[in-house]
């Protein structure tokens, strides 16, 4: 999956890929203060394609809001919401909106799930439907945070650590391997990283084709940009 950190006040964006063995679970957002946790599990293609590269995608997210007593499991198969003693199951094939206790859900058939958790976070999960008989690919999900300003400064995780901004500069622009993707040196967190200008797709406005967002690509699973290593964010369970 590709991670994107858009920084409009810099007119810029940062991106990196993180891949691992199918089945691995990563922590995307963790805010112990507001009791929010978002973990995601990746899945691989049905078989290794001719080019030999293993592509992975998120197919399942586990979301917890401890203070509201909410637990959600969103997968390409469906959505389960647990709050206190009640349980709700939703199918991607329906359009529905639910106003719950501290939580609003808007499900748009076969397309997106928008969740607003009171006083903490608002996010959208996009469903990418793939032709069932596709030789390699499967359905997968995208996770977009829309409003994070209420999370505490200590929020962390592969996405969460960027919610309160990041300071960096880019210099020494030079030709890269391909002419339209120049390389440059990024100074971030006291390090110098070799980065490449590229783009990644934002699928919010067009779930099929996406919209290209130019970004500085950080190689090697975001090493140097993220705190620690990608493997530091691996957890054993979805919740």
């Amino acid at each position, binding site marked *: 999956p*590709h991670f994107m950190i858009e920084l409009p*006040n810099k007119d810029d964006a940062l991106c990196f890929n993180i891949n691992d063995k199918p089945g691995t679970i990563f922590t995307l957002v963790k805010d112990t203060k507001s009791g929010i946790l978002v973990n995601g599990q990746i899945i691989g293609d049905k078989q290794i394609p001719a080019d030999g590269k293993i592509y992975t995608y998120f197919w399942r997210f586990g979301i917890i809001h401890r203070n509201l007593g909410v637990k959600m499991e969103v997968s390409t198969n469906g959505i389960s919401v647990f709050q206190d003693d009640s349980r709700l199951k939703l199918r991607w094939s329906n359009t529905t909106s639910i106003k719950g206790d501290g939580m609003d859900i808007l499900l748009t058939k076969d397309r997106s799930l928008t969740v607003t958790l009171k006083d903490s976070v608002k996010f959208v999960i*996009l469903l990418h439907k793939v032709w069932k008989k596709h030789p390699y690919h499967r359905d997968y999900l995208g996770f977009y945070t*829309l409003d994070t300003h209420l999370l505490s400064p200590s929020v962390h995780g592969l996405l969460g650590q960027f919610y309160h*901004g990041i300071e960096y500069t880019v210099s020494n622009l030079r030709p890269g391997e391909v002419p339209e993707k120049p390389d440059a040196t990024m100074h971030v967190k006291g390090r110098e990283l070799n980065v490449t200008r590229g783009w990644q797709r934002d699928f919010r406005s067009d779930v099929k084709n996406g919209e290209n967002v130019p970004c500085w690509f950080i190689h090697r699973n975001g090493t140097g940009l993220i705190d620690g290593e990608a493997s530091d964010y691996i957890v054993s369970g979805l919740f």
Partner: protein
Amino acid sequence: STQPVRAEVLSVKVDCAVTSRFAHTVMTSTALNKANVSQEIFFEVELPKTAFITNFSMEIDGQVYVGEVKEKETAKKQYEKAVSSGQTAGLVKASGRKMETFSVSVNIAAESNVTFVLTHEELLQRKLGQYEILTRVKPKQLVQEFQIVANIYEPQGIAYVETHATFLSNELLPLVEKTVTEKKAHIAFSPSLDQQRKCPGCDGTLIDGDFVIMYDVKRTSSLGDIQIVNGYFVHFFAPPGLSRVPTNVVFVIDRSGSMSGNKMHQTREAMVAILQDLKEDDYFAIVPFDDEIIWWKETLTKATKENVTEATEYVKGLYASGGTNINGALLKGVNMLLTDRAEKRIPERSINMILLLTDGMPNHGETDPKRIQENMASANAGNMTLFSLGFGNDVDYSFLNVLSQKNKGLARRIFEGSDATLQLKGFYEEVSSPLLSEVDLRYPDNAVDLLTSNHFSQLFNGSEIVVAGRLADNNLDNFLVEVVGQGFEDNFQVQGKSAALDWATTYPDEKYIFGDFTERLWAYLTIQQLLEKRKSGSSDEKVNATAKALDMSLRYSFVTPLTSMVVTKPETEKGPDSPLIADKLTEEERQQAERNSRYHHRQTFPSYNAPAPPSYFVDGD
């Protein structure tokens, strides 16, 4: 503008009559469908966001279709089916910082005419010493009869009138006709077809942009100017010759992570400029904050050249990181002002103010907006004024607005863009020259009722206080007025008698201008103040204010955030058309519209579009 395909715009007229600052503008456009089939004709005009639409009509084949102002909820319910199926079209959209767009389209038979008429009204506000009438014109094609006419009637006397337009080239400049007499100004601009052309023989029009009229009135009386017309009175108060009161200002500056980049850069630039504008008898402090609160100096400092130079170097070094503790920073500012006042480190006759500059919601310390508002109001206890500058599209404007209103001040949005520094500095210029504080305008209780607000925390240089009311006795044509306030050296106190104005004597050559303008001005002002009260008052006050504002909006046919104008289009062969609904946008709705439009505009790098809110996501290809 009227923008048909194979249709001809026969005329575009903007007719503005300003009577004692109250502007009544009628925009009329007639188009002819030249095609031999029926087609959709569009009417799109822009009006100032401070104006209320009061009337709209379409005339087609001699039949007039008139918009009707209804309670917003009733209008919505009435057309619920059409609204829920997405058939109705909202007629009003945000357009830039100062304007909103009204647009409507209607199906017109072959070889037929349509005339659209939109009327709006507003009370012009005096800012930095002048009133401004802004007309945005974009006819998009040559127009047989194009005309902008403004007549300004100011019984107080007109000091000057200036006009400029963004599209006025040297050739068009002499076409602006301006006649100014002592109490009346007439401005007209009416270019011929050839004069509108971009180049000889081509169809493009030069007319595209803002036509701006600026003027001020003469001020001789310390009491101000009181006009009594048809049982209502209005009092304009901006006396000449007052000295500026020194200010003690604490700049509370958000330097949290979300301010990084342009916002922080522009804040630094604006602060450098603002510091140079401080007067030597002012005192100031700087309190930057993220999740930590720091300060330049422990107490307020006199704005001597040396101190300003030192502070300038300090603000140049501000950088952004961390969370946002607005509550803590504001309380620190309050505490500094109160302590310095108690320990007599600042002049006795001076005005205390806090200028908060922030881009977002608190996420550190006290984060509940309501509690921050309460904390600030209770710590302040009426001792100082809070002005808030909300930076960018993501800012919770309503939070800052209520926060400021509860502390005698006001909030302003700062739009991200290359001129943000100028916006910041401009706002400071507006509020940094108080002439009077705690101003009370008093009228005899038994003579007037339904008075608009008559207490004001400050009167700023270049602004004006306006109070209106109804006379209890319709036959009354003068009454005693008193104004008290605190000036720089002495208390300010004036008394005088008002007199009813004889319009026939003042404007002998004018026929009826619009006789109920004082009443409509009073209604406009009352509604504006009630709408503010419904945001910041107690829950009872909110309910009462909403009910009163709604009642008056309906009675005076103003499209306000509580009412809608419903326009029913003529039926076509295909069946009845869905209704169209014109709403008044709130600042929050405008902000939302900008967010959406910016999101869709993002495409290229480097981008010079104004930034969208940050987003973080993970997805696959």
